[in-house]
Each structure stands twice: as structure tokens, then as C-alpha cells.
């Protein structure tokens, strides 16, 4: 594992200053990072919020930082990741690593050749509910051998036009459901085949759902259900993990540590519907950034690495292939 003599606190360059850069920001702020940013649009606004130094080119940013955090739309990931690796930088890259399995594998190999770390930001691994389940599964004592896993993720289509374009985002499978595909892989291991179905409302193409069924090499089977609901749909995530030794369930809607009644809640402002309300949790995005930065300093492993990012894209692509052909796809 490569260690790097980075400045401490690190100098980080955020590339792309849209929605997800705001989610990554608190982690870098917590680390006291020296912030730089470069973006085709919105860099000044981000700099004003974050105190980051703006750059008018990627090269200029790369010359000023130790770590690059790629927060652009997915189609731009490969070029930026490669440029950062070639400049000798370690890289955090928002998920999915790339739109195709080939590109994802290429990025992981590129990092290997460059001797730099590449962290795919699969933030759900840092949600404490999933992490708790994963720890319990790994002990073997809580659920025994996993048999049937179900994951649901519900939200609204993110309010940015490129998400709705399947060519650019990979659609609901590649953008939203990849979180749960990654969870299924994390918990039940590699898969041998994938079957997927998707439905897009004919009356409103922003409303869509996908079902993906994974058959793991272990014999376990997983169902992932994604939903981009109508405007106002509340963010929700659930899992149900049945093994021969026990059963684990979680539903974010059934986790009310704090309950306002109808009168009080009518006075609360509503969320934006696609990023979770994590106000009572350790911010999983911050936990993710801190784990990556800490691992860079110590040369330590992280709970998600480039190979995991590649696998998630490979399985998601197989799901898209199943959508296209109507067939079950071997992995």
C-alpha cells in the first residue's frame, strides 16, 4: 500500500462543484484541508461557500494539490481521474467510477500503474446501519449463511438534467441502485448472474423504478429495488437480510429517534428529496472522506477500494445489458 508524504492538513482539489461536492465538503473541512476547486460552472459560488481557491484550468489545480476529489458528472470522470493520476495525485472519485466496465477497469489499472490510490465514493458503506449489518454478517454468528437479501432505495430524480439522460448517468440502475448493488456485493460476495427489469411511467418519464435480481456465487440471492418517485417523494432506504442463522432488517422510515407530531412537522421545512436527512447520524459523507484521507496518511486499507468500484460498475452494466435484452446475464 502506497503512503504519500502529503501536506498535513492535505491540499485537496475538488473538480466539479455541483451537488455532490457539497456533500464531500464537510469531510474536507473537518480535516482542515486546504481547498482548491476547478469547475466548468459554479466554481466561484462554491469558493464563496467553502473558502476554496479557484483555478481556471485542471492543470493549474493539479499543480496546487496532493489529492483530487472528482465530483463531476460521471461521463467526465475518466479523463479527470487519469490526468490526476498522471500528475501523481491520489484520487477520490464519486460513484460510479465510470459508465462502462472497461473504463472502470482501466482507471483502476491506471492507478495501479501510477502507484496512487483511487477511492470510489460508495458512501452507503459509511452509513452506520449498513456498516453495522456488515460487521454482524462478517462475524458469522448473527445471520449465519446469507440466503435472501432485499434492498430498497426511494427518492426523486436528482434535480439536474444530466441525471435524466441515460447515456450520461446510466439511469436509475447506474446512478441510484448501484449503491444497493454495491451493498449486495459487500455483504453476499460476487455474483454469477444478473436479471433486471425497469419501468418508466409513460405519463411522467421522471418517475421510474428498477428491479435487479442477483444470484451470488455463494448461492445467496438478492433483490434490489430502486425508485425515482414523483415530486415530493421522501428519501427512504431499507434492507432485509435473511440467513439460516438469523434475520436483519432496517427501514429508514421506521427509525424515528426524534418524532415531531403533525402540527410541529408542518412547520419544519422539507428536505430536497434525494439526499438523505442524516442530521442525527455521523455524516456518512464526512466519515467517508475522513477514512480516505486517514488511509492515505497511514497507507491503510479502506472499506471500499478501486476494485470494489469496478465490480459495482461491472454488475450494474450487466443489469443494463439485461434491461436491453430481457435476458439473465452471466457475470
Amino acid at each position, binding site marked *: 500500500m502506497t503512503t504519500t508524504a502529503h501536506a498535513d492538513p492535505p491540499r485537496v482539489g475538488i473538480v466539479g462543484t455541483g451537488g455532490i461536492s457539497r456533500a464531500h465538503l464537510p469531510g474536507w473541512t473537518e480535516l482542515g484541508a486546504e481547498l482548491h476547486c476547478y469547475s466548468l460552472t459554479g466554481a466561484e459560488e462554491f469558493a464563496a461557500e467553502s473558502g476554496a481557491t479557484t483555478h481556471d484550468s485542471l492543470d493549474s489545480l493539479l499543480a496546487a494539490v496532493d489529492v483530487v476529489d472528482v465530483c463531476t458528472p460521471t461521463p467526465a470522470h475518466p479523463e479527470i481521474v487519469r490526468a490526476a493520476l498522471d500528475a501523481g495525485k491520489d484520487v477520490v472519485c464519486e460513484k460510479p467510477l465510470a459508465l462502462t466496465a472497461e473504463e472502470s477497469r482501466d482507471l483502476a489499472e491506471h492507478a495501479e500503474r501510477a502507484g496512487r490510490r483511487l477511492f470510489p465514493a460508495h458512501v452507503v458503506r459509511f452509513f452506520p446501519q449498513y456498516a453495522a449489518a456488515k460487521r454482524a454478517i462478517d462475524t458469522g454468528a448473527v445471520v449465519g449463511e446469507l440466503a435472501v437479501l432485499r434492498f430498497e432505495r426511494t427518492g426523486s430524480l436528482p434535480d439536474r438534467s444530466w441525471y435524466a439522460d441515460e447515456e450520461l448517468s446510466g439511469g436509475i440502475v447506474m446512478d441510484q441502485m448501484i449503491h444497493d448493488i454495491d451493498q449486495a456485493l459487500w455483504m453476499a460476495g460476487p455474483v454469477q448472474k444478473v436479471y433486471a427489469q425497469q419501468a*418508466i411511467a409513460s405519463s411522467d418519464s421522471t418517475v421510474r*423504478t428498477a428491479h435487479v435480481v442477483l444470484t451470488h456465487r455463494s448461492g445467496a440471492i438478492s433483490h434490489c429495488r430502486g425508485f425515482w418517485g414523483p415530486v415530493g417523494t421522501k428519501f427512504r432506504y431499507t434492507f432485509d437480510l435473511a*440467513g439460516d442463522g438469523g434475520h436483519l432488517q432496517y427501514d429508514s422510515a421506521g427509525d424515528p429517534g426524534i418524532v415531531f407530531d403533525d402540527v410541529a412537522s408542518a412547520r419544519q421545512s422539507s428536505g430536497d428529496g434525494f439526499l438523505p436527512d442524516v442530521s442525527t447520524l455521523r455524516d456518512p459523507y464526512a466519515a467517508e472522506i475522513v477514512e480516505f484521507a486517514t488511509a492515505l496518511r497511514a497507507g491503510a486499507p479502506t472499506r471500499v477500494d478501486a476494485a470494489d468500484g469496478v465490480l459495482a460498475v461491472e454488475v450494474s452494466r450487466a443489469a443494463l445489458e439485461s434491461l436491453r435484452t430481457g435476458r439473465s446475464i452471466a457475470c
Partner: protein
Amino acid sequence: MLTARTIDPATPMKVALMSCAHTHAVGYAGLLEARADVDLVVADPDGYGDVRGVRVVPSYAAAWDAWPEGPDAIVVTSANAHHKDLVLEAARRGVHVLCEKPLATNLPDAEAMVEACREAGVVLMTAFPVHFAPEVEALRTALTDGTLGEVIGLTGTNNGKLPAGRDWFTDVELAGGGAMVDHTVHIAEILDSVFGPPATVHAVTNRILYAERAGEGAETGGLVTLTYDSGLVATIDCSWSQPADAPTWGGLRLQALGTGGQLQIDAFAQHVGGHGQWLPYGTNTDALLLDAFLDAVRAGEAVDPTGEVGLRTVAVVAAAQESVRTGQPVAIAGA
């Protein structure tokens, strides 16, 4: 061939409950025995002995002969593989039938049963009690009256413990399979009642849960994905994934997603809980099922859930089993 029995409303209906093999027999017997408008005889040819306090006879022949003119109707609660012979015999005698689900263990048997009852002019209904759950009725209403807008997806879970006390439930010869046979049909019936038959069926199964107790070859976990010509996609988790020490047998939930929002139902939500406790207090759907059947017999015409829907759900299971064999989705013929 005899013609179908017409029922004299002034005298109690003569009903024979055929076999105590199914665990539902006890409940049906209790409900039927309590009715003044039913004269009940129970056949217990396997000698299970747990239906008590009613007139029990030791053979099917004794039940058929319990009245000089025979029964008006039978309720079939035998092992699944024996449904066919009992239903065909009832049709031959012009006797009306309520048959436990799944209607049959294979498609040809189910087709023969529906055809025989149709030709004989007898009522054939399939015992899907959850059809009568008020939560399911609310779902059907919301799916059909536009409350949920354009419905694009459903997820159903019908999870339970490994059926206990009756080994035939996990014997693939007698039951027709494992969890996928036992637990796909309830949700398939609910979906059928709203959307009609699916276009394709895909299924994967395993036998990790209860692997040491399930009969050889019986799947204990399964995910069945249905597509419809409208584009709708639905997945049923039919697994026996309820832990053995849970305070209740399992449950049935459905979640529907549309452009008008979401609805989730839990057909067995009504209970008083507590540590390790489960005290159900909801609607007795078995009683509603028997009401519907007895009314249908008096009227001479089946109502939902009919034998035909029982047949269509057997077709879904048969397609799911074929999908497991081939590894690919299977088109439903004639859908």
C-alpha cells in the same frame, strides 16, 4: 353424469372437509361447525387427529357416503398433489368445491380440474383467504381507482417459517415444490385480480434457509419477478425466511409505486405485540372466504377467487419453475 347440486336454502348445506393434511383444516372445520346453515363432516384418512369436536370419519369414501345423497360441497385440504383426484371426483358427482391453494402441483392437473368443474357446472373456488383482507381490498381499490396514478412497480413479500408439523409441505412430490409453490400464489392472485396475468416470469431460488429440515430438492428461498405488457414490473419474495423462533408464522406485505405516490400494505399488521408476543385481532379472512364460497354455492356461480385464478397462479408458478431450470425469463402462454 349428475348435474350440479342445487341447494335448498331451507336446510343446512352438507359440506365435507376432505383431509386434515393442511394446517388450515382445523380453522375451516371450526368455522363451518359453528354455522347453523352447514352440516359438516370431516374426513381424516391420514389420522392426523387434530380436528376435534366435529363429526370425523376415517376415509374419503365415508365422507362421500355420510349423507344418502352425498355432500353438496367439499372443502379440499389434502396435500397439494392429492387435490386433483378429489376435485375430479367432486365434479363427477356434481359437488361444488373450495380447494386449498395452490390449486394443483402442475399446470395439466390444474387445467383438468378447472375443465371438469366447468363441464359439470359446479362451483370451483380456490382458497386464497388473504384476497379478503381489508388491506388487500384497499390496495386493489387504490390500484384501480387512480389514487396511485400510473402504477409502474410492485414488491410483495410473503415470508414464513418452514411449515411445521406437516412434513408434506416440503416434500416436492406432495407439495409440488417448496417455498415458491407455497408462497408465490397468494401475491400472484392479488396481482392477477388487478392486472391480469403477467407477460413474463423470472425466478431464482436456493435452499440455504432451513436446509436441514426442508425435504430434498425443496427450495426455501426465492425471488419471482413478473413483467406485464403495460411495462409494470413486480417482484415476489416467497422465501421461508421467518426465523423459527419468531412470535408469528410470517406475513404478507405489498408495496405499490406510481406517479401518484406509494402505498404499502401489511395484511397481518393487526396485532398486539410485546416481547415475543403476537396477538392477532384483525379480520378473520378464513370466515370471509367460507362466506363467499357458501354464498356462491347457493347462487350456483363462483366468485373470486375462482378456480380459474387458481389455475392462472399455478401457471405463474410453473413458469417460475421453468425459469429456475433454464436460468432465463419465461413467457406466459396466452397472456
